[in-house]
C-alpha cells in the first residue's frame, strides 16, 4: 500500500520530516530534534556491544590469576582493585545498558558481596549468545524465555550437586576458612590469605547470631592505617577509634584497678559543661555578686559532674561531646582519662563491646551502667604522631570486632579492605546457608553439561536458547583458564569429559598450577547462594535488555 508522504514520521529524531498537509513542520515531543532514538535490531545490537565492551574490561580480573585495574578519579585519586563492583562503579559509564551492568554487579555486591565480576561476565556472555540467535531471526523474548527455563534447569542441577558443610560442627569452621580463602584467592592479599581468611572467619563467628542465622555487619568494623605491612593486620576483639586521650598527660594505657576484673568505662552523651536549658533564655546579671555566683555555680557544676563520674567508679570516660580546658584539667586531676568527640556510631560500638549503657545525664550515671573492658590503650604508629585508641574487650561474650588493616600504601589498604569485605560476605553467606559448590568454574561446567543435556529434550526454539545458555556458562571456566595462562578450549574440554566420566562436579580449572583439578581436594569452594544469585541476576538482566527494542534519549541542551 502506498502510504502518503506524511505518514513517514514515526522517526521522531528528525523534526523537519514531520510535516502536515501544508508542509508545515510540527513538533510532537518536546525537544524532539535533540532526542536520539534507536529501535529494532539496531538497538539490540548496540546494547549487546555495550555490554560486551564492559565485560571485556573486567574479564581479565576474574580468578586467582586475574589482574588488577588502576582507576584514576577526576580529582586524581587512585584506586587499584580487581573487585568487579568497584571497578564498574568508578568507571562512570555513559551508556544506558552499561549502567545496567554496573547496577547488576552492585546488587550482587549488596546481596552476596562476592562474585561481582563473574555476574557481569556471565550476563555479557548470555547477551552475546542471544545476539547470534537474534541474527538467526528468533524473537528476542522467546530467547529470554528459553534462558529463563535453562536457568531453572541449571539451578536445579546446581542445587543437586551442593555439599552441606554444616553437618559437622567441627569441620564447619574449617570450611568457612576455606571458602574465605577461595574468595581471597584473586585479591591483592593472596600472599597473606591465611591470615585474612582467619580474620574473616573469626570476625563473623564473633558477631553472628547462630539461632537466627543473622550476621550484623555493622558490628564488624574495618579500620585501615597506612604503614607497616599486610602481615601486621590483625583482628581486634573490641573497637578502635581514631582518637586519643584528651590530655597529653593522661596515661597511655588504662588497666583494671586492683581487685576489679576490668576497666570500667563511662559512656556519656552529655557534654562536660554547665547544663543549658534548650529554651531560649537570658540571664541578666546586674551586680558583681550575681556574677560571682554564676561563676561559682559553673565551677560547682564541673565538680559535681566529676564527682558523679568518680562515684560511679569509672576508670575511663568516653564522651560524645567536647569539654573545655577547665573540665579537662579537672579530669586529669581526678585521674580520669577521658576521650572526647567520639562519633555516635563508634560510641554505640563501644557500648556494645563493653556492654555498657550510654548515659545521657550525669545524674543517671551508676555502677550498673558502666561498661567493662580488658584495657584501653593508645597505639602509636611508627614515627608518625597519630595515635589511635583501642578499647579491648574482655572475657565478656559481647560482640564487636575490628579488623585492623595495615599496608604500605593507601591503595593497598583500601584494596585489602575490599578483599576482606568480600570474604566476610562469603563467610556470612555460608553461615546463612551452609551449602557449598565447588569453585574454579567447576559449578559452571556442571550446569553447562546439565543444560546442554536438557537442550535436546526441548521442543522448538527453547532448544537453541538452552544450547546458547550452556555456551554462555562455559565462558566462566574459559576465562578463568585464559587468565591463568592455560589453553581455554583444551581445559574446558578436559574438565567436561572428566566431570561426565566420573559423575561428579568437583573438577574445575586449576588456576594456580597445583597439579590437580579436584576442587574438593584443593578446597576451592563457593557458597551455593552466591552462585545461584549470579545465574538468576544475569538471566533476569539479560531478559530486560533483550526486551528493549526502542531507545529514546533526551538530548542535552546545547549550552
Amino acid at each position, binding site marked *: 500500500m502506498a502510504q502518503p508522504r506524511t505518514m513517514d514520521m514515526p522517526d521522531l529524531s528528525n523534526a523537519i520530516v514531520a510535516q502536515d498537509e*501544508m508542509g*508545515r513542520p510540527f513538533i*510532537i*515531543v518536546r525537544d524532539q530534534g535533540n532526542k536520539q532514538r534507536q529501535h529494532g535490531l539496531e538497538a539490540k545490537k548496540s546494547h549487546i556491544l555495550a555490554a560486551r565492551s564492559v565485560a571485556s574490561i573486567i574479564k581479565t580480573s576474574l580468578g586467582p590469576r586475574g589482574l588488577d585495574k588502576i582507576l584514576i578519579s577526576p580529582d586524581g585519586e587512585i584506586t587499584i582493585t580487581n573487585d568487579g563492583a568497584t571497578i564498574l562503579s568508578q568507571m562512570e559509564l555513559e551508556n544506558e545498558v552499561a549502567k545496567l551492568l554496573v547496577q547488576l554487579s552492585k546488587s550482587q555486591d549488596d546481596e552476596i558481596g562476592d562474585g561481582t565480576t563473574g555476574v557481569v561476565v556471565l550476563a555479557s556472555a548470555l547477551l552475546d549468545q542471544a545476539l547470534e540467535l537474534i541474527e538467526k531471526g528468533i524473537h528476542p523474548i522467546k530467547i529470554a524465555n528459553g534462558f529463563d527455563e535453562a536457568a531453572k534447569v541449571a539451578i536445579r542441577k546446581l542445587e543437586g550437586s551442593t555439599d552441606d558443610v554444616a553437618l559437622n560442627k567441627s569441620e564447619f569452621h574449617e570450611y568457612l576458612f576455606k571458602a574465605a580463602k577461595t574468595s581471597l584467592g584473586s585479591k591483592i592479599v593472596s600472599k597473606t590469605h591465611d591470615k585474612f581468611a582467619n580474620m574473616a572467619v573469626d570476625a563473623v563467628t564473633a558477631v553472628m547470631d547462630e539461632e537466627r542465622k543473622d550476621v550484623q555487619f555493622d558490628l564488624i568494623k574495618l579500620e585501615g592505617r597506612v604503614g607497616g605491612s599486610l602481615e601486621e593486620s590483625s583482628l581486634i576483639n573490641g573497637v578502635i577509634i581514631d582518637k586519643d586521650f584528651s590530655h597529653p598527660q593522661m596515661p597511655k594505657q588504662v588497666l583494671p584497678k586492683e581487685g576489679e576484673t576490668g576497666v570500667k568505662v563511662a559512656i556519656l552523651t552529655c557534654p562536660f559543661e554547665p547544663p543549658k*536549658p534548650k529554651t531560649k533564655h537570658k540571664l541578666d546579671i546586674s551586680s558583681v555578686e550575681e556574677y560571682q555566683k554564676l561563676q561559682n555555680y559553673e565551677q560547682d557544676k564541673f565538680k559535681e559532674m566529676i564527682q558523679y563520674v568518680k562515684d560511679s567508679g569509672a576508670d575511663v570516660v568516653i564522651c560524645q561531646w567536647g569539654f573545655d580546658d577547665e573540665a579537662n584539667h579537672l579530669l586529669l586531676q581526678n585521674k580520669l582519662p577521658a576521650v572526647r568527640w567520639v562519633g555516635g556510631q563508634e560510641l554505640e560500638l563501644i557500648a556494645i563491646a563493653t556492654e555498657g549503657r550510654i548515659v545521657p545525664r550525669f545524674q543517671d550515671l551508676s555502677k550498673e551502667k558502666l561498661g567493662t573492658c580488658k584495657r584501653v590503650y593508645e597505639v602509636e604508629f611508627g614515627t608518625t604522631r597519630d595515635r589511635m585508641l583501642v578499647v579491648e574487650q574482655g572475657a565478656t561474650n559481647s560482640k564487636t570486632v575490628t579488623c585492623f588493616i595495615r599496608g604500605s600504601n593507601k591503595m593497598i589498604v583500601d584494596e585489602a579492605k575490599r578483599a576482606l569485605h568480600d570474604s566476610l560476605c562469603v563467610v556470612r553467606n555460608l553461615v546463612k546457608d551452609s551449602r557449598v559448590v565447588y569453585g574454579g568454574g567447576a559449578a559452571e561446567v556442571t550446569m553447562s553439561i546439565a543444560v546442554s543435556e536438557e537442550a535436546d529434550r526441548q521442543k522448538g526454539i527453547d532448544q537453541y536458547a538452552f544450547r546458547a545458555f550452556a555456551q554462555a556458562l562455559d565462558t566462566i571456566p574459559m576465562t578463568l583458564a585464559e587468565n591463568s595462562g592455560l589453553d581455554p578450549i583444551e581445559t574446558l574440554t578436559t574438565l567436561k569429559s572428566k566431570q561426565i566420566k566420573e559423575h561428579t562436579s568437583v573438577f574445575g580449572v586449576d588456576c594456580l598450577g597445583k597439579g590437580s583439578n579436584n576442587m574438593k581436594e584443593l578446597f576451592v569452594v563457593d557458597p551455593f547462594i552466591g552462585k545461584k544469585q549470579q545465574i*538468576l541476576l544475569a538471566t533476569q538482566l539479560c531478559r530486560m535488555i533483550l526486551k528493549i527494542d526502542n531507545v529514546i534519549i533526551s538530548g542535552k541542551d546545547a549550552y
Partner: protein
Amino acid sequence: MNFGNQTPTIVVLKEGTDASQGRGQIISNINACMAVQETLKPTLGPLGSDILIVSSNQKTTISNDGATILKLLDVVHPAAKTLVDISRAQDAEVGDGTTSVTILAGEFMKEAKPFLEEGISPHIIIKGYRKAVQLAVSKIKELAVDITNNKEQNNRQLLERCAKTAMSSKLIHNNSDFFVKMVVDSVLSLDQDELDEKLIGIKKIPGGAMEESMFIDGVAFEKTFSYAGFEQQPKNFKNPKIVSLNIELELKAEKDNAEVRVEHVEDYQAIVDAEWQIILTKLEEIEKTGANIVLSKLPIGDLATQYFADRNIFCAGRVSSDDMNRVIQAVGGSVQSTTSDIQPEHLGTCETFEEIQIGSHRYNLFKGCPEAKTCTLLLRGGAEQVIAEVERSLHDAIMIVKRALQNKIVVAGGGAIEMEISKYLRDYSKTIAGKQQLIINAFAKALEIIPRQLCENAGFDGVELLNRLRMAHFQGEKWYGIDFETESIGDNYNKFVWEPALVKINALSSATEATNLILSIDETIKNKEGESPNAGMAPPPGRGRGLPM
C-alpha cells in the same frame, strides 16, 4: 493565497501566535497522534518489547507500560497530548490497558482519515463512532461472563487468571505464577469493601533475584535513622505491644519562640531540671503503658533511644507517614499525639516483630497482624530499573484484580473480544443505509488492530491469523483469539486468558471519546511560548505560515 511579500497583513493575533485551521489541521493532528501510537505499538502483548527512555535529567526508565512511556516522552503537541491524557485516565480508572487504549485511539483516527480526505464532514464520522461504541459496549456487557455465583475457591482462581493475563506482557511474565499469588494475596488482604490499593505497601530493595521478593502479611519498612544506643535495643519480639506516636521524643525547646528570663543563678538549674522532667515524664508514661515497640512519626532523640534501650524497648523515629498509616492498619491501635493518656486499647500488636537484613539494608518487619487490612510487598531485582518495572507491572495487576473483585464479569483477552465486537459491528453495519454504514465498518476494522499488533509483535503472520480468526468468529466461536504458545488461534476463554470487562469497556469508550475530540478540532491557536530556556529549540514562530513549501 500567495500574494508575495507585499501583502499588507492584518494583524489580529499577537505576534508569534501560531494559528492553523481547516481540514488540514485535523489531518495534521491525526498524524501527530499516529506518530505517538507508532511509538507504543511494539510494546503490546506478551511478546511486546520494552522501551528504554533516558529523560533529560539522565534518569533511565525501562518500561512497557503505556502510561509511563507516554508520560516520559514529554509530548507537547496539543492533539497528541490527548492520547497521553486518555492513557493516564485509563491508568487511574482501571490501571491496566493503557497501551491498548492509545493504540485503539490512534487506529480510530487512522480509519477516519480517508473519510476526511474524501470530504466527509467530521461530524458524521463522530456520530458514527458514537453509535458504534455504544453498540460495542452493550455487546461487551452482553457477552461478558458473570462469575459471581461461583464458589469461594473459584473466586480466587478467577482473580489469579485475571492477574496472570495482566502480567503476560510484562517483564515478570515468566515468574507470573509466583507474582500472581502475591498480587491476589495482597488484594485479598485489604478491606474488601474499600479496596484501597494504597494500603498495599511496595518496598523496592535492589539486589537479589525477582523470586526473592516477599509478601508480608503486615508491614515492613526500612530501619529509620537511629541514634547511638539503638543497637542495644532488642530486635526481636513475639506478640509485642506497639505504641504509635506523633511526638518528638527529644530534649528540646518546648515552644520555638519562647524565651525564659532567669533572674537568679539558682533558678537556672531549676529550668534545666524542668526541661528534663518534661521529657522524662513522657518517657516514663510510655514505659508504663507496657509497650515493647515505640514508633513515632517524629524524631526519637538519643536520650530517648538510650532510655528505651535500658528498658528493653525497641523504638523507631521518623517513620514516614505512609508507613505509619499502614502500621496502624495492620497492628491496630491508633496514633497518639500525647503520652499522657494512653490506654491499652490504643496499643497494637502482631505475632512477630523482627529486624532483618535484606540486601544491604535492614528492615523492620511486623508479621502476622491480627487486623491486617494491609500488606507489604518487598520487591527484589538485579537493577533499579528492573524493580521499577516490576513495581509498575504489579500495580497494573493489582488494579486488575481489584476491578475484577468489584465487578465480577470477565471477557477473554488475546484479541478475542475485539474480534467478536468487530464481527458484530460489521454485521450490524450491513443492516443500515447511508454513510454510517461505512463509518461503523471502519470502526469495526479499527478494532482488529489489537490482534493484528499482537501477531506483529510476536513475529507471527498477522494476515493469515487474522483471517482465521475472522472465520472462527463467523462460525460462532466467540472466544477465539491469538494463542501465543502454538502460534495459532484458540479459545482464550478456556485457556483462562481473562480480563475484567470493565477494562475493555473503559478502553473503548475513552479511545472513542479522544478520537471524537480530535476530529472535532479544526483550529489551533497557539500563543507564543514564554521565554523558556528551550525557546531556541522551537522553529522560528510563524515560519511557513500558510505557505506550501
